């Protein structure tokens, strides 16, 4: 094998799912490990889950990644609060979803027109406000990109997006 395989060319994007102990500084540890290696976080989505064994679950997406992703999971595995870390990249069967919320401007008159346009674009109307409507959309990060771009000419006031969460649909070798 050649030595260069620890690097990937061209740089790619990979998602990692990590479960970690719920303790102070756990997330900071993970984030500082990523930044200390000069890697770029594209998105980070995290929640504490109390339904099973009380831990933090997160998906972090790294882009411009020029290091083999399995080396990153091994690095995550060094962190004491990390219970499990796995890479989810193109080779692994998975589902990935992101949620976006958008506030669109428009008076009562424009509303019906907007509704139609929204539905055509796959969004869902949530509430009507004094200045317009709030709608949501779920999809892959690329779909959210397209949806938001499509909303711009319709009077997009403000939006927020969660970043992707990913779920492997086949069991894979996990670290540590």
């Amino acid at each position: 094998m050649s030595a260069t395989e620890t690097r990937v060319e061209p740089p790619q994007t990979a998602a990692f799912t990590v479960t970690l102990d719920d303790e102070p500084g756990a997330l900071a540890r993970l984030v500082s490990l990523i930044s200390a290696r000069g890697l770029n976080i594209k998105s980070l989505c995290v929640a504490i889950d109390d339904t099973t064994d009380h831990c933090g679950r997160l998906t972090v997406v790294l882009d411009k990644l020029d290091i083999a992703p399995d080396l990153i999971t091994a690095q995550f595995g060094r962190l004491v609060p990390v219970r499990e870390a796995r890479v989810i990249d193109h080779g692994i069967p998975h589902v990935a979803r992101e949620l976006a919320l958008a506030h669109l401007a428009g008076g009562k008159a424009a509303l019906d027109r907007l509704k139609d346009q929204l539905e055509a674009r796959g969004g869902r109307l949530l509430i009507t406000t004094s200045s317009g409507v709030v709608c949501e959309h779920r999809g892959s990060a690329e779909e959210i990109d397209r949806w938001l771009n499509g909303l711009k000419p319709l009077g997009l006031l403000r939006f927020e997006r969660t970043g992707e969460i990913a779920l492997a649909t086949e069991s894979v070798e996990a670290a540590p």
Partner: protein
Amino acid sequence: MTFQTLSPSITSSAIAPEKPGAELLLDALEEQGVESIFGYPGGAVLPIYDALHARTTLRHVMVRHEQGATHAAEGYARASGKVGVVLATSGPGATNTVTGLADALLDSIPLVCITGQVPRHLIGTDAFQECDTVGITRSCTKHNYLVDKAENLPCIIHEAFHLARSGRPGPVLVDIPKDVQLESARYTSKHSAPLRRSSPPKPTEKTTLERVIALMRRAKRPILYTGGGIINSGPAASEALRALAQETGFPVTSTLMGLGAFPASHPQWLGMLGMHGSLEANLAMHDCDLMIAIGARFDDRVTGRVDGFSPHSTKVQIDIDPSSINKTIRVDEKLLGDAGEILRDLLACWRASETCAASKRERMNAWWDKIADWRAKNSYQYQRSGDAIEPQLAIERLHALTREREVYVTTEVGQHQMWAAQWFGFEHPNRWMTSGGLGTMGYGLPAALGVQLAHPQALVVDIAGDASVQMTMQEMSTAVQYGLPIKIMILNNAYLGMVRQWQELIHEGRYSQCYSDSLPDFVKLAEAYGGSGLQVSDPSKLDDAIRTMVGTPGPFILDCVVTQHANVYPMIPSGAAHNEILLADPEPTLEPQS
């Protein structure tokens, strides 16, 4: 967030009386088998020092700078195989430990560092001597904690010791707010404390072992590339390595950190590898067909340019740390676990595997002939002038005159460190303490204190440079106070010698800021601290001077004035491949071998 994961599983503590956090801390240290602490007091740890005052079971060594405490604890840990313990106050006390923590992280030295913190209600208010200790030390520790309440303190201490010594060892820091040190709670013993990372690694699969043995049986040009992981695994791992080498007849090289695991006097020993390693070790690494890395992590000072690193070999890596595998060099077979255990497994498997014709030792004859040719170049050689002390000569003589004794060597960082690694032949593990990963000038003197505390009867020598030794020189005062008779042999070239060497070889002789125009009188300095010293510059007086140093009770500085412009050879310039090695002779750079 809470310390959910750390609350005690069994309430065996129900009968234990309540005690202040400071007492709980000391109880936990005692239960962990701690005998010595290296520390320095201050406002935020006064309750701990108050509790220490009454304990005769714990020996506290008051250093002169907290960096000294961390290196002393490292020396103690490496020489004794126990966890080194540091105690420092908040703010500047904590920040002064950072260098030592980073050093211990890179060299996998088990430390537990206890720091004081401002009381909980003042955290985050820019209080006096407040700093974000857990934030600052997050990336230079294996793990760290800010203790939220006294009740959790014993469990945290037990887990800290467990983490420091298990897996790939390293430093763990516990930051304790002053009011937590005063708050009362019940003790939790180590048997009741829940520990993370306590499941033992899976034993290596038999089929993997058999595949590796098959490679070993077939290899015509094998090499064992050993590292500090063998030392960390304990003396039994060195025993297993010796047995495996003996039975396979494979040549052995080692990193700077692994010296002593395999005896330097053994005919299969090739010497250290890497930037200043021997010609035979580096060329054998380059040309081998089978490389077995054992507790060694393919550091850049070892691999040089990665795409030129050992291009034709099958690589097997044995390591306890999954993140060290494939990190810079992809390997073909990995064996995850303790180096000693895996070496014993391999040995058993080797013995059980039947010997076929291909496995006869003769298959390696050509390889050993090649190694003999490289060895004949005598790559560590240097010119002896007879009228000045060459630095290599000083170490050769130190080794020759102390080899009958139980001797421990620490070093600072620079040329003297490399010459010590080249010329002081180590026969046993745990006798060599050096800052390999971080390369910390100022490591050796305080590390020697820790080694001496662990081995009061042994001879402990810090082989030092005139510049490095001044970084932590004040610990001479500690040596005198605690009667630790360390010997400091300064190879005094008046230069930041390693910097001068790079400036000569890589920056066309522009000697920018590498000369010490005014050095202290080291002999007077030793005397000022209450020790003694001697200066020597005449090679004919060198042996007597070394004998005087070794024979004088108490801390001693031998100021050994050496030739000023010697370079360390061989040298693989950083970023070059192993076969682009520079030798001392004006010999041309070697052509690629294969």
